[in-house]
């Protein structure tokens, strides 16, 4: 009964969303206040309906309803409750429902908090969001119904892949989808603006928080996925340039460019056409990722079950939303006139450079990801495009970007002078050089990590210099504190996010100095790595809720002092018939001691020991970046007041 209710709720949501498209577009076109007024309540209705459907599916998972096909294929009664819950979205059908749920949430937010938007713009944005929802609800109902029944019900489900049974991975998809779907809102704003033929500072101020929020969630989602790979996959890797990872990185890069170019629209009413394009692009990249992961055209461990038929439907949706958006862009973007003028050396100029480099990196990732597929299709040749390519091709683009990250915030709007900015940044540059030299001195000829440390020092110091400069810390130190309190949150957010990037690069550079060792150790014996002794005490059997394991106990000593006791495991999941390794990690924030238990033989056990300097800083940095986005988002000015340059427009908005 409850699965049928869920199915019905999905169909209801589809009907409501269709109504929302009509009322929004027609209402805005005819300037009919009653029709436009109906879009908000309809959006709320869609949200309630989709949320009910999702709840029904979750219920089926919690009670392990084996008459539901989706539950049978992806769950098992012996699974811990958390993973029964996360199992709801750990499969193709359920994840699509989550996707639409988040879309409905975004629609609800635009309806609920968008009261100060011009009503026509709000109605159109809601209509476009509903249009996206219609497509994906139709897709779910037509090809991927999660509520399909199976009769007679099997006694037990087939289980969830044990490597996916992890708290980190349980929350990785929802965060990613918050990011992907958040860009649906900026997309809707862009399409609405194209229909109206008008982009102004108010538009920029509305798009930016959504871009920021989507980008922050995407940052967290990607970081969580990367962290999971690091501690779960068991060889210390954290980023593999896998097509599925790239699929999440592309919208991140486009979104990063978008949230920077939206600043220019907001403050200076320049780069409007470009910003609209980026809004379309960011969502387009999100959809492209969805297509790549779910259609089976690419070759990846992460990919969901391959189904060309589903792929065709997603491709049609893609053509509709991306193709339609771009067509509208080609047709209507002419109408947008820029007003702000700026010199090449200016804040705007730096943001243009940022966009140029970010988009070039996105292009490299896009081409690198798609190239093997198209080379196969067109030339009939098979290539692999792996980490060595991406690292080589992106470095020359990332280096100037890192340089510009320091300079940009120091430049004045409209027209700036390079020399004063240089003057304020000399010590940051000096710190960078110092870090470079220090690393070379301590670690020998390791140019890569040394460059990384230099870049990190430069970015963090430049972010600090930016804040110090704004609060006049050195020129008028006494007033600095009050000025710091008065500084707009957006300024803090930007500096924090930039510093977060620096922290992340610090982690990456540290990992460049990682060492590891593979050794067969007998109980009582010890082995040494990076100045620490690892003594294997014993290997014993252990049992978990749905697995059995072999657990090693290893004491780590620095001389005679006990640093920690590590207990790596090798787990066997009988239901899934899989074995996984559970790495034991001890971190003191300066380095991770990372230990993996391998085969047991000759009365001993194979241990793989990693000494990973600064490893946690990679994800800490990403979290700081997202935090910066959050701080920026909390800036009241962003939502309420008028842009400094055009006060007249602000009052017209109310």
């Amino acid at each position, binding site marked *: 009964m409850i699965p049928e209710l869920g199915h019905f709720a999905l169909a209801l949501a589809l009907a409501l969303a269709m109504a929302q498209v009509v009322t929004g577009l027609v209402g805005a076109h005819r300037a009919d206040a009653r029709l436009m007024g109906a879009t908000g309540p309809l959006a709320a209705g869609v949200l309630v309906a989709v949320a009910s459907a999702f709840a029904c599916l979750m219920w089926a998972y919690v009670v392990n309803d084996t008459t539901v096909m989706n539950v049978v294929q992806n769950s098992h009664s012996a699974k811990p409750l958390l993973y029964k819950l996360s199992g709801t979205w750990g499969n193709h059908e359920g994840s699509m429902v989550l996707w639409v749920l988040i879309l409905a949430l975004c629609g609800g937010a635009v309806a609920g908090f968008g009261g100060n938007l011009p009503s026509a713009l709000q109605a159109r944005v809601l209509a476009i969001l509903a249009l996206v929802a219609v497509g994906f609800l139709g897709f779910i109902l037509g090809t991927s119904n999660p509520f399909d029944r199976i009769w007679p019900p099997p006694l037990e489900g087939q289980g969830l892949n044990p490597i996916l049974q992890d708290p980190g991975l349980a929350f990785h998809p929802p965060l990613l989808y918050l990011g992907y779907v958040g860009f649906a809102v900026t997309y809707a704003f862009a399409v609405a603006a194209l229909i109206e033929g008008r982009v102004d500072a108010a538009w920029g101020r509305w798009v930016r928080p959504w871009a920021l929020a989507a980008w922050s969630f995407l940052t967290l989602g990607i970081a969580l996925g990367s962290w999971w790979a690091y501690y779960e996959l068991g*060889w210390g890797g954290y980023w*593999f340039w896998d097509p599925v990872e790239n699929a999440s990185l592309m919208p991140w890069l486009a979104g990063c460019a978008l949230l920077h170019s939206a600043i220019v629209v907001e403050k200076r009413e320049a780069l409007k056409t470009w910003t609209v394009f980026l809004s379309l692009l960011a969502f387009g990249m999100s959809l492209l990722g969805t297509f790549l992961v779910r259609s089976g055209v690419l070759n990846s461990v992460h990919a969901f079950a391959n189904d060309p038929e589903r792929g065709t439907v997603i491709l049609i949706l893609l053509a509709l939303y991306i193709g339609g958006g771009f067509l509208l862009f080609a047709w209507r973007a002419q109408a947008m006139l820029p007003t702000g003028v700026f010199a090449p050396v200016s804040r705007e100029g730096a943001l243009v450079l940022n966009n140029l480099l970010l988009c070039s990196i996105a292009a490299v990732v896009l081409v690198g990801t798609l190239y093997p597929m198209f080379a196969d299709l067109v030339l009939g040749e098979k290539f692999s495009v792996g980490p060595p390519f991406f690292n080589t091709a992106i470095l020359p683009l990332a280096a100037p970007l890192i340089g510009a990250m320091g300079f940009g915030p120091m430049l004045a709007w409209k027209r700036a002078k390079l020399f004063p900015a240089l003057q304020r940044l000399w010590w940051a540059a000096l710190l960078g050089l110092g870090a470079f030299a220090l690393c070379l001195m301590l670690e020998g000829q390791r140019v890569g990590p040394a460059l990384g440390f230099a870049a990190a020092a430069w970015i963090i110091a430049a972010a600090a210099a930016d804040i110090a400069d704004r609060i006049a810390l050195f020129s008028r130190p006494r007033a600095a504190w009050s000025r710091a309190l008065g500084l707009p949150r957006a300024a803090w957010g930007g500096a924090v996010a930039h510093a977060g990037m620096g922290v992340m690069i610090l982690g990456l550079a540290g990992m460049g100095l990682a060492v590891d060792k593979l050794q067969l150790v007998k109980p009582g014996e010890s082995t040494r790595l990076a100045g620490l002794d690892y003594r294997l005490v014993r290997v014993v059997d252990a049992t978990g809720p749905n697995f059995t394991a072999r657990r090693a106990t290893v004491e780590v000593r620095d001389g005679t002092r006990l640093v920690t006791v590590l207990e790596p495991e090798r787990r066997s999941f009988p239901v899934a018939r899989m074995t996984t390794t559970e790495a034991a990690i001890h971190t003191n924030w300066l380095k991770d001691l990372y230990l993996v238990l*391998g085969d047991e033989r000759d009365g001993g056990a194979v241990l793989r020991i990693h000494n990973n300097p600064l490893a946690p800083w990679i994800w800490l940095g990403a979290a700081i970046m997202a935090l910066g986005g959050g701080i920026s988002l909390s800036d009241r000015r962003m939502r309420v007041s008028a842009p400094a340059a055009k006060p007249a427009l602000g009052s017209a908005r109310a």
Partner: protein
Amino acid sequence: MIRWLFLLLLACGPAWAVNDPADQLPDARLEERARVIGRELRCMVCQNQSIEDSDADLARDLRRIVREQVAAGKSDTAVTDFVHQRYGDFVLLRPPLKLATALLWATPAVALLGGLLLIRGMRRRRAADAAPESAEELSATERARLAKLAGGHNE
């Protein structure tokens, strides 16, 4: 394909690569060289993993071959060529530079140059469209051009 399901589930999956210590080269410098070579070679049965990161049987064999040849004094390119000859371009994680990959390798430059041209075009249009009120912010040449256009330009 059944074969693939089978291979992916049993032989591979994301690797729990705890390799055999006996495979390592005793000389740390040679071992490091072998790792650098290995990281450029794709494990054919896994997706997007290098043979160094994978516990698949085939990856283990290739790791051994790389180490044997490094220990035998072969150069890095000779070792890579040995594997390349047998497994084709697909095994190289860094695609070889040839006609069919020219576009791939040119991407950074093409994107950057294309972007620069686009920016130049946009700046020209902006200069042409600019409202006269911001003229004091323009350079002398831009102002001259603007003055020339100020009369009839209206897009």
